[in-house]
């Protein structure tokens, strides 16, 4: 059991969530312009102003923006005056949420604004993501994210864990569910398509696009004041695996399983799971690692197959899971975020609503 459970953990909840409509390009908008409406919307949901927020934390990547310190301009969208208590992770916004959660746990703040954004449209994303790989032995070969995911998919097929028909069904279900999600980039019937990198077809891959997301966290009674049905964070944990694909079993995700265990996901069944699985094959890996049975509603938002704004897509999963609890459509939900090639790093949060 984790230390956090024995430490008289402070009750902290996601009380509001907002996101952009994710789309293929946003070249008419700067990052600040893309982010600002989302920040306004999430604050409006709670009636809070920037100056009411105790801690602010964001996630983004300089490599997507193509410039150093890109997050400093985003800070203009927050309106950091008078000065604010603020931090930034060069990770998906789900990890910014984790940092904010620990800050609230210390009692130093009662509310936190967490946001993330990414514009994949300015550059060739598949090439850009190769720069994440071991710079001496792997990156010089430019193996792109789809090719690496295809290796994982083939390993799953070889192990008998899935087949192309099952992958096609995941793609179809995700895009079908996304029809009810006005923020999704790909929705409705999408053909499984031609092979992009075998065995993955275009339909198995996420859309490339731009987007932003924001959530507000609040502790204790403050959460109840700000939200009719707060999504209480019962646990959150994240784990990383070895970087080299050659030393990993790509058909499994021990880091996701361990994070889920530490977050308390296995203590009681969840009714909903928002998984950050950009490729259909990765949903297969995660369902197994997270022990999600057929009764669990997986990715009702359409998931990353419907919209995958890099650096924000993980935070969107937490936000979507929380929003379902806010709306009374879920009582206990699991949210998952991933980073790195072939699910190298994974975060799991368990959210609950008050009993109805």
């Amino acid at each position: 059991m984790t230390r956090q459970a024995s430490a008289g953990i402070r009750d902290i909840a996601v009380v509001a969530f907002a996101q952009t409509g994710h789309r293929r390009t946003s070249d008419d908008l700067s990052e600040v312009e893309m982010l600002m409406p989302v920040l306004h919307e999430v604050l409006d949901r709670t009636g809070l102003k920037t100056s009411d927020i105790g801690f602010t934390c964001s996630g983004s990547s300089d490599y997507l923006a193509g410039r150093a310190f890109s997050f400093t301009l985003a800070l203009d969208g927050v309106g950091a005056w008078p000065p604010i208590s603020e931090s930034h992770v060069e990770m998906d916004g789900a990890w910014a949420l984790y940092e904010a959660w620990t800050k609230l746990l210390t009692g130093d703040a009662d509310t936190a604004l967490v946001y993330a954004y990414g514009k994949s449209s300015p550059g060739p994303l598949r090439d850009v993501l190769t720069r994440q790989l071991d710079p001496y032995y792997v990156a010089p070969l430019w193996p792109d994210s789809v090719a690496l995911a295809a290796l994982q998919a083939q390993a799953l097929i070889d192990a008998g864990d899935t087949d192309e028909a099952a992958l096609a069904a995941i793609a179809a279900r995700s895009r079908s569910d996304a029809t009810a999600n006005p923020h999704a980039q790909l929705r409705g019937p999408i053909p499984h398509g031609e092979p992009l990198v075998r065995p993955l077809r275009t339909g198995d891959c996420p859309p490339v696009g731009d987007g932003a997301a924001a959530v507000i966290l609040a502790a204790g009674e403050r959460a109840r004041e700000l939200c009719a049905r707060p999504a209480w964070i019962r646990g959150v944990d994240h784990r990383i695996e070895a970087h080299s694909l050659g030393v990993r079993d790509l058909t499994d995700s021990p880091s996701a399983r361990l994070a889920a265990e530490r977050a308390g996901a296995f203590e009681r069944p969840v009714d909903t799971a928002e998984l950050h699985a950009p490729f259909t094959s990765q949903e297969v890996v995660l369902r197994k690692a997270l022990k999600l049975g057929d009764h669990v509603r997986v990715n009702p938002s359409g998931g990353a197959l419907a919209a995958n704004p890099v650096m924000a897509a993980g935070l969107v999963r937490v936000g979507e899971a929380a929003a379902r609890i806010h709306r009374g459509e879920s009582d206990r939900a699991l949210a998952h975020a991933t980073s790195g090639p072939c699910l190298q790093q994974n975060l799991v949060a368990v959210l609950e609503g008050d009993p109805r």
Partner: protein
Amino acid sequence: MSKEPVAVVGIGQTKHVSARRDVSIAGLVREAARRALDDAELTWADIDAVVIGKAPDFFEGVMMPELYLADALGAVGKPMLRVHTAGSVGGSTALVAANLVAARVHGTVLTLAFEKQSESNAMWGLSLPIPFQQPLLAGAGGFFAPHVRAYMRRSGAPDSIGSLVAYKDRRNALKNPYAHLHEHDITLEKVQASPMLWDPIRYSETCPSSDGACAMILTDRAGAARSPRPPAWMHGGAMRSEPTLFAGKDAVSPQAGKDCAADVYRQAGISDPRRDIDAVEMYVPFSWYEPMWLENLGFAAEGEGWKLTEAGATELDGDLPVNMSGGVLSTNPIGASGMIRFAEAALQVRGQAGEHQVDGARRVLGHAYGGGSQFFSMWLVGAAPPQS
């Protein structure tokens, strides 16, 4: 609920140099981490989580390098967080790690910051042209020189102050085996005769470009009780941010810096920093930032900071030693520079700073800043556990 007290029980650095061509990025960070573990007499298995920080990824040309560094830092199967808050990142990274302990999420955390600037060129890494955005020009010196000039005009400080700071810091560096620049033949005249780069900042008044890493082991009370050497205790820590440019911004003494210091002093019970704090390790990348930060941090009244420098109060044997390690002026692996400041503060209160030890240092401030004088992170560490 009360926070768990946080102790520093291990500190490790690499010998900072202009180019570590003998090691990979992984080799560099592992060297610092290994030394911190050795200092704490712990092993990789004792570490619950890793928090790593560095400045922009363009400085090495690796996007989110922590993914590739997971193995080298023994993080496989553990949580690994990557912080990036511009130049203040080394300090922010330590504070994020400290929060994990303070919140009782983890018992013992490895925190590390690095930069391997020889992999690329920081000045041009900072100067990528972006359509429709104001360029930062070539590097940081051109950005900060006007702020220094504004300070000189506002305070009436004599032109010589900057060179005094550089001369002091470079001499302090001679006592620090890990410092990058060891200029054994340094004289005040040589500093003053060095070429003018960004008026009024001369070549010898600027930071070098370094390869280096710094690591610390942070732990809770139980961990501190097992420590083989005296721990440094965290008495206060804070971060503050403000926008880069806006009407009414005081670029000489930013409000975010004042607020950050005030928060740290409140936590630590410091009412008069000049009296209550024994030494300061602050982020001075250009010499004139010493008097500027002395004022911003409340060690001198506005316009008076340069008088402390001129009177020798900030020398290693002065009554408020500043940058005992030789500072950023002598060592600057950018992403690690903030953490080196935090680590030097901890070394001082542990009594382990060697030749650059300040006798009787009980409470020392570590300070970092970044961006356009807009991101601040600070901590105050003490030889005794916090009272609360």
